[in-house]
């Protein structure tokens, strides 16, 4: 294709992508599945919040009881121990990175724990949300109605963007709810700190999950049967988790430790880092994974019979 024809071709492709993105997003929002997924995600986050809150209060009560027994009671000692505990948990969650500990000092520890735990399960949630985005159209061949009027690349990107947009909205709703709860439960957690951290946490979750949305798009492009796409998606998530876990567990001297670099979850640690370089490196890794998965999905969809 010559240069003069390439520009309108690209513009037309972008227009198609936007039309598919908008239409698929409207359908997804109106469908019952969006509400079910929002309900599931909310319930899960609430459960984590409750369990973490209950554990924290139990530990606090036990420590206070011990202090009282040892005759070292008093609010000052209790507060000091609570702060030490908090630092311990923060250190554990941030791999003792002092810059991160400082940056997250104002964030209630429950919020951090909920964030970490929900982040672990977010890829599974993403898989449930979009496993049939392409296979659900290729199997019953309804994709044929689209491909006579739009490029396969536009169909792929439009579907990916609609999934990503829906996730963006759902994660924002849940994060907002968790932060509002944290603000009510912790009066010291000011409005400005809440808003800033909400934005940071939301951005981190989005950067993290976009690569998994792309992975789900790839799994959906690989198969005609939605159920097979879903199972394969979960297998991929397990393999990535295993690679990260094995890579971390073995010593640096083992070749296997390189495995962790091939797993997206390895790069999650620095998503809340205040340093632009650290956050940028993590973000770049996720962008690279997302691009790789989308490219593979496109090659698969482009080459296949519909």
């Amino acid at each position, binding site marked *: 294709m010559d240069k003069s024809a390439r520009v309108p071709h690209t513009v037309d492709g972008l227009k198609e992508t936007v039309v598919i993105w908008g*239409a698929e997003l409207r359908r997804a929002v109106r469908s019952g599945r969006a509400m079910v997924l929002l309900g599931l995600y909310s319930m899960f986050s609430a459960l984590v919040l409750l369990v973490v809150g209950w554990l924290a209060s139990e530990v606090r009560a036990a420590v206070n009881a011990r202090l009282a027994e040892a005759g070292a009671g008093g609010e000052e000692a209790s507060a000091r121990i609570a702060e030490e505990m908090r630092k311990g948990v923060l250190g554990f969650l941030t791999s003792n990175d002092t810059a991160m500990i400082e940056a997250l000092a104002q964030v209630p520890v429950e919020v951090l724990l909920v964030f970490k735990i929900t982040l672990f399960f977010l890829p599974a949630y993403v898989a449930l949300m979009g496993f049939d985005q392409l296979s659900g159209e290729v199997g*019953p061949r309804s994709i*044929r*109605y689209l491909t*006579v009027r739009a*490029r396969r690349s536009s169909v792929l990107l439009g579907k990916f963007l609609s999934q990503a947009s829906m996730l963006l909205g759902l994660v924002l709703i849940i994060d907002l709810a968790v932060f509002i709860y944290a603000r009510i439960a912790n009066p010291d957690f000011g409005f400005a700190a809440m808003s800033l951290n909400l934005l940071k946490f939301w951005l981190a979750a989005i950067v993290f999950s976009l690569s998994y949305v792309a992975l789900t798009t790839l799994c959906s492009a690989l198969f005609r049967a939605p159920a097979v796409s879903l199972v394969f998606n979960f297998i991929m998530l397990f393999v990535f988790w295993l690679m990260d876990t094995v890579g971390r567990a073995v010593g640096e001297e083992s070749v296997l430790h390189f495995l962790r670099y091939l797993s997206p979850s390895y790069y999650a640690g620095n998503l809340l880092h205040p340093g632009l370089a650290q956050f940028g490196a993590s973000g770049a890794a996720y962008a690279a994974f997302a691009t790789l998965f989308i490219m593979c999905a496109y090659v698969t969809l482009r080459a296949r*019979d519909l």
Partner: protein
Amino acid sequence: MSDLAIELFGVSKRFGPKVAVDNVSLQVPLGVVYGLIGPNGAGKTTTFSMMCGYLYPSDGTVKVMDVDPTTPGALKGRLGALPQDAILPPGWDVGALLMYWARLSGLDNPEREARAALEKVGLLEAWKVQTQALSHGMAKRAAMAQALMGTPPLVLLDEPTAGLDPRIAAQVRQVIRDMKGKQTVVVSSHNLQELEELCDAAAILDKGALAQAGSMSELTGQDAEFRVQIARGTVIPPELTTMPDVTDARMEGEHVLVVRFSAKALPEEVISRVVGHLLGHGVLILGVSRGQRLEDRVLQLL
């Protein structure tokens, strides 16, 4: 720009060891209604799917409106297609779905196009009906409507009347008739009577291979033979073969005389001469028909 809407050259399609289409070459001129004929498993839908760019040929080349149909965006706005077994996506109102697709086709007024297309197939009342609630016939018509939106120069219809009640099937046939001369239409169907009535030309496929292709008169032999139904009297075929332009004459059963004639001859002259001869020899005639029915021709070939 050539005067061909579709050109297949040496096209084959294999699914693993199974050869669905085997070395098919055919040409569909612009502006005609063209039929794809053949029994189940003949390769009609596979050929149709390659024309639409859904399937890649294993061998050979397919050109649709002068372009490779698998080239991204190449046929946008130039092709309307009714795939045979594609299900309408669930969760949409029919009107909203058609508007979405019209927008995707880049049509100026999506709502007007969607309404006009639904009206053509008599389904305007289903504007607000969810796609999963449509009956088979309604879904078929909604799918047909999407192929008609924007009046594309080429419309491919795979089994457009299958499963429709006779009244709706007649309506769909009328829609195809209305497109004649304005758009190129390719129709795949089992209904040979329907195709004979609608099509200017056709290709007969059998077991993936092309059995014959040509204009409808070529296929049915309208310009090469006629049948005379005899009521009473004795016909002596050898007498007829001595007449100018008559190449063959034989009785098909007791009461049907089949006469073949030279392709260069004018049919009306040969028919008149033969009928005159028969009447002159005391033979009484019930009727004369040109060629043979498409169904008979297909049965003869397959």
